[in-house]
């Protein structure tokens, strides 16, 4: 051991000695002067490795301009002097051991023009290559639409003759290259005259030979120069598109295409889809490809309130029918059973440049669907059960045209104005026929056969103007906006039905034939104005004040005619008009404390509703007009903070007041449906909803564990409810009422963690909710309590690049209990298992297999319905991954069925719709940007 240590010592000493013997050192000195032979004091001198310019040491010159580096290891070195306003000077200072005296180093001043115009005014970096200097041209301001030639005229040292000949510092530029490639047969004029200046990022001018010189080290004075124009990244490319066409058995077909072209300023896109498979096929990717920079309109919520505080959040849709926006229409058309036939398409144009943003979009959608549905509904009453069976066939066609134009202009750095217009036109027709029967304790009481035709059309016009203003005082801001919305709908339907009544033994008694024409005009206009003002109060406090005004006018005109023979006779009983005016005002203020991840907001608002309603019926009998005013105080509290790293807690309380429907306030009897009579209630008051919510989340980023828990609880005062009376003939009479009580509780827990990092992971969640709904049925107060729990677990296996497997299971149990009919308490269970395999196979082929098993159970109907669906496809990229061929089978077991079940109020509902089942499809995809052959599911981070 001792010996080893000795040997080691000996070897190291030899090595050290050897190295130090080899490392000879030398000194370098010199004097730096300017061109007028004045010594250059305080110039920076750096010692560099010659091979790669690595910095070894640096120093500054003395007052007499001298500098010195001591004990420099021998080798190849450079000395470089720099001084403000002078061209950096580099000299060789290599040595094998002898000291080097660089002598007098003369620095020449940087071309003044270059310094002032390029470096200082245009803030462009300049790059020195020997004697030539290049700089970034993109920072030079030229008017829009200028050519490269116009740009060159502005660059120092560059001269452009009237015939387009270019020279720099007196030397002719004989060749122009673009991105290093020859352009238009190397005629420099063609390139400079035709290319737009705004597409250029860099202008480089160098001696035509200089590249070669750099290799050989030879220097020679060249009279000819080459100019290289580098294109900006965003002008180089930007455009993609794809088309998918498929044809299958059962007369199925799919066609989908999109195309997109964009640069920094302009985005243009087209999308089109046609299919009869019910798979709309438009994904989030397609949505982004279509709307581009307008995909996510943050801050779209213009109805200011307590939250937000100018923060950015994304509001999606929310409206339906004619008021549905393009975003929600884009994603609609998913499979809802039946036999669909869909056509969608649109065109979008965005212009986005500096202070101006313009976007315009048009979207057309057409949905056709044939459905044949069997429905079964039970209602539980104190002393009997009502059962309704319906067998319905419908053929629905709806078409919509929607267009939007938005303009946003930044007026100055503090003020932005935005104007938006949108319009829509829809027309729909729905032909339905079928039969239904009502049973009381299993004895037939009423039967109905019908054949109706409904035709609607209408338009919408909407305009919005918005102003955002910031102030010199940081944090102070103002938002103002106003909008007008107008819609007009014509809804016409022809009713043709035969009602048959039976006695309590189930014997036919009587029948009623209804042959009617209904003409409905519904107009609505909404004016909104909102204001928000945020004022910093110093420290970490802010005040936020908002005001909302809304005036909604609705009027309608319904004319009903009985068809007798060939004549139309006004049905005085059902013909009526209404004219409603709802004015809503809310003003509120809040105080916010925001600091280091903690935000506390407390506020109070007062809200008022002014409801005015006027209704007449054809008999010219005026219904007593509604004229009510409600005022409500609404407090608000929100606290969020992170107690420890990677955690987040949010707690809030809010109160909302919802106004009653004017139709519910009008005290008249609505017996359009003779089996379901509604009576208004003039004493209705606004419903007050109190909401408490909490959210806690924690993540352990290194191990990949995430936990979150959300819960919210709402309780009501004056909750809207119904007083229902069902008489012996199964005629239901409904009166809207306010009732105290009722609550809803909803909670969501989720946990995800990896089992084997990057290979196996688990995501699980659990949803628990309880709703208590009070109603009055046949004079008894009934609380319907629905308790739902739904655990979910998903396992992801991503063992290797070529394959991934995803397994999931969901169980959802919903227990409904009725105060008045405990025997009717029931449990509805839905179970879902799914497996997905994505894998690479042999011969460049891939497969996607998707199996989904769904089971519906309901102890009331004593039924269990299982729907196993297997979809599989086999595909292979072709033509250098530009295209793909695919063979698919959908619903291999031929089991598809649109199935629905729910329990609510005092009833339970179940329906099944015959739907497109097994079919094979062959499809081809062409993608300009290459098809994706991925065996993983996308995820967002």
């Amino acid at each position, binding site marked *: 051991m001792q010996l080893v240590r000795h040997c080691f010592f000996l070897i190291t000493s030899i090595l050290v000695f050897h190295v130090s013997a080899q490392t000879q050192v030398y000194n370098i000195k010199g004097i730096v002067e300017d061109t007028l032979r004045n010594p250059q004091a305080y110039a920076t001198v750096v010692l560099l490795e010659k091979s790669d*310019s690595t910095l070894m040491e640096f120093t500054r010159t003395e007052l007499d301009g001298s500098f010195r580096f001591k004990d420099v290891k021998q080798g190849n070195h450079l000395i470089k002097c720099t001084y403000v306003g002078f061209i*950096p000077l580099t000299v060789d200072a290599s040595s094998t051991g002898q000291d080097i005296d660089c002598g007098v180093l003369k620095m020449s001043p940087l071309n003044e023009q270059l310094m002032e115009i390029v*470096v200082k005014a245009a803030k462009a970096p300049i*790059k020195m290559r020997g004697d030539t200097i290049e700089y970034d041209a993109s920072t030079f301001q030229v008017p829009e639409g200028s050519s490269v030639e116009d740009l060159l005229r502005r660059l120092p040292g560059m001269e452009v003759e009237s015939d387009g000949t270019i020279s720099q510092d007196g030397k002719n530029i004989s060749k122009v290259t673009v991105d290093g490639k020859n352009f238009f047969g190397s005629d420099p004029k063609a390139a400079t005259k035709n290319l737009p200046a705004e597409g250029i990022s860099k202008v480089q001018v160098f001696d035509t030979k200089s590249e070669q010189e750099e290799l050989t080290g030879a220097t020679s004075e060249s009279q000819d120069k080459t100019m290289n124009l580098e294109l900006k990244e965003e002008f180089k490319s930007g*455009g*993609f598109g794809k088309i998918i066409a498929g044809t299958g058995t059962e007369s199925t077909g799919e066609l989908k295409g999109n195309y997109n072209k964009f640069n920094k300023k302009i985005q243009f896109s087209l999308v089109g889809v046609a299919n009869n498979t019910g798979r709309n096929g438009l994904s989030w990717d397609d949505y982004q490809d279509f709307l581009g920079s307008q995909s996510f309109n943050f801050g779209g919520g213009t109805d200011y309130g307590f939250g937000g*505080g100018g923060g950015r959040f994304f509001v999606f849709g929310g409206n339906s029918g004619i008021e549905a926006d393009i975003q929600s229409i884009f994603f609609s058309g998913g499979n809802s059973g039946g036999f669909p036939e869909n056509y969608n398409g649109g065109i979008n144009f965005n212009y986005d440049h500096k202070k101006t943003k313009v976007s315009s979009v048009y979207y057309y959608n057409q949905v056709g669907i044939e459905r044949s549905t069997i429905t079964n509904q039970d209602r539980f009453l104190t002393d009997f059960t009502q059962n309704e069976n319906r067998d319905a066939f419908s053929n629905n066609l709806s078409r919509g045209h929607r267009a939007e134009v938005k303009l946003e202009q930044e007026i100055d750095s503090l003020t932005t104005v935005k104007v938006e217009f949108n319009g829509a036109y829809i027309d729909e027709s729905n032909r339905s026929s079928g039969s239904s029967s009502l049973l009381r304790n299993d004895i037939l009481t009423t039967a109905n056969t019908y054949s109706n035709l409904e035709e609607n059309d209408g338009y919408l016009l909407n305009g919005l103007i918005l102003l955002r203003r910031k102030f010199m005082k940081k944090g102070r801001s103002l938002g103002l906006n106003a909008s007008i919305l107008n819609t007009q709908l014509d809804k016409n339907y022809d009713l043709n039905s035969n009602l048959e009544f039976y006695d309590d033994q189930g014997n036919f008694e009587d029948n009623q034939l209804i042959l009617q024409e209904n003409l409905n005009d519904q107009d609505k206009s909404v004016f909104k104005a909102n204001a928000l003002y945020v004022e910093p109060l110093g420290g970490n406090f*802010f005040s936020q004040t908002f005001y909302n005004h809304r005036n909604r006018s609705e009027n309608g005109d319904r004319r009903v005619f009985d068809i007798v023979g060939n004549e139309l006779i006004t049905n005085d009983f059902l013909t009526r008009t209404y004219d409603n005016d709802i004015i809503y005002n809310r003003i509120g203020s809040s105080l916010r404390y925001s600091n280091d991840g903690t935000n506390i907001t407390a506020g109070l608002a007062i809200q008022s509703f002014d409801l005015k309603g006027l209704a007449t019926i054809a008999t010219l009998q005026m219904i007593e007009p509604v004229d009510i005013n409600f005022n409500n105080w609404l407090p608000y509290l929100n606290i969020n903070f992170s107690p420890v790293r990677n955690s987040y807690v949010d707690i809030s309380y809010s109160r909302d007041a919802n106004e009653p429907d004017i139709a519910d306030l009008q005290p008249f009897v609505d017996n359009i449906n003779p089996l379901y009579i509604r009576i208004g209630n003039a004493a209705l008051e606004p419903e007050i909803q109190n909401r408490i919510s909490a959210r806690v989340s924690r993540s352990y*980023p290194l191990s990949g564990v995430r936990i979150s828990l959300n819960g919210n609880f709402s309780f009501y005062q004056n909750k809207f409810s119904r007083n229902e009376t069902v008489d012996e003939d199964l005629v239901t009479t409904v009166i809207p009422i306010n009732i105290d009580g009722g609550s809803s509780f909803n909670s969501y827990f989720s946990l995800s963690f990896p089992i084997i990092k990057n290979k196996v992971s688990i995501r699980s969640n659990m949803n628990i909710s309880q709703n208590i709904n009070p109603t009055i049925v046949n004079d008894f107060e009934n609380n319907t309590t629905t308790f739902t729990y739904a655990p979910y677990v998903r396992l992801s296996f991503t063992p290797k690049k070529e394959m991934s497997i995803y397994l999931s299971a969901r169980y959802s149990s919903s227990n409904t209990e009725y105060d008045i009919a405990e025997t009717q308490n029931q449990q509805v269970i839905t179970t879902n298992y799914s497996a997905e395999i994505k894998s690479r196979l042999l011969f460049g082929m891939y497969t996607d297999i998707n199996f989904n098993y769904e089971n519906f159970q309901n102890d009331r109907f004593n039924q269990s319905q299982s729907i196993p669906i297997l979809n599989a496809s086999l595909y292979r990229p072709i033509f250098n991954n530009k295209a793909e061929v695919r063979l698919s089978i959908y619903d291999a077991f031929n089991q598809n069925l649109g199935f629905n079940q729910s329990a609510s109020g005092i009833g339970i509902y179940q329906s099944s719709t015959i739907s497109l089942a097994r079919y094979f499809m062959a499809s081809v995809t062409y993608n300009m940007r290459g098809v994706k052959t991925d065996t993983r599911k996308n995820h967002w*981070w």
Partner: protein
Amino acid sequence: MMNHIKISVLGLLMLMSISITAQSIEGTITYNRKTDWISIMSKLPWVTQEDIDRRKLTWGNEESKGRDYMLSFKDDKSVYSYKKEEASVGYSWKKDPYLIIRDHRKNSFIDQRDFVGKTYKIEGEIPKTKWKILNELKEIQGYICMKAETYDAVTDQTIHAWFTDALPFFGGPEGYSGLPGMILEINKNDGDAIITATKIDLNSDIEKLPIPKKIKGKQIEQEEYNLKITDFIAESIEGRKNPWWRLRY
């Protein structure tokens, strides 16, 4: 006349630089840090050209305001951290701990850094950065800067620094140092992250650098910390997660 003015301006400049050089400088510099997420994501191996185009299309025109940091320096020592936020309308979010202290005289450093949600304290001798000096000049906040380049093997980033010899402090933002003047801009991987000086204040007298008395964090050696980062990047990329969501780029 014009020439006279120029000469006197030049003279004044020289005088200024002399007076600057004569004593060690002190003051504060505000830096703005911007990250180009599209460009960062574009480099992840599983991202396709179509994905990149889609992100450019959707988010390419979004302008980020970046985040402000402040470098305070005095007596060859510097502290670099978040700049205290002025009143802003938005909600406040908790920031990851980040404190970079350099003592160029003693050649020592103390860093408080986040690593994937955990705070570490790293101390030691300032490692020597292998800088290449390039032949480029540009102006930042009135100072003519030269360009230098280095490669960070831990994060696989090419770093460009713009430094000015008119400010004789041999440090800069994010702990970068070793150039013959103050670094006024750091550019990582051609614009993926740019940290640039937006305000230079040499007049404010700094009584004491804002160094907290106690710097929390788990003590770790620089090499060990670097290893954690390299491992995390490799592991995230294998699991198809963007490592930079969790790491400072």
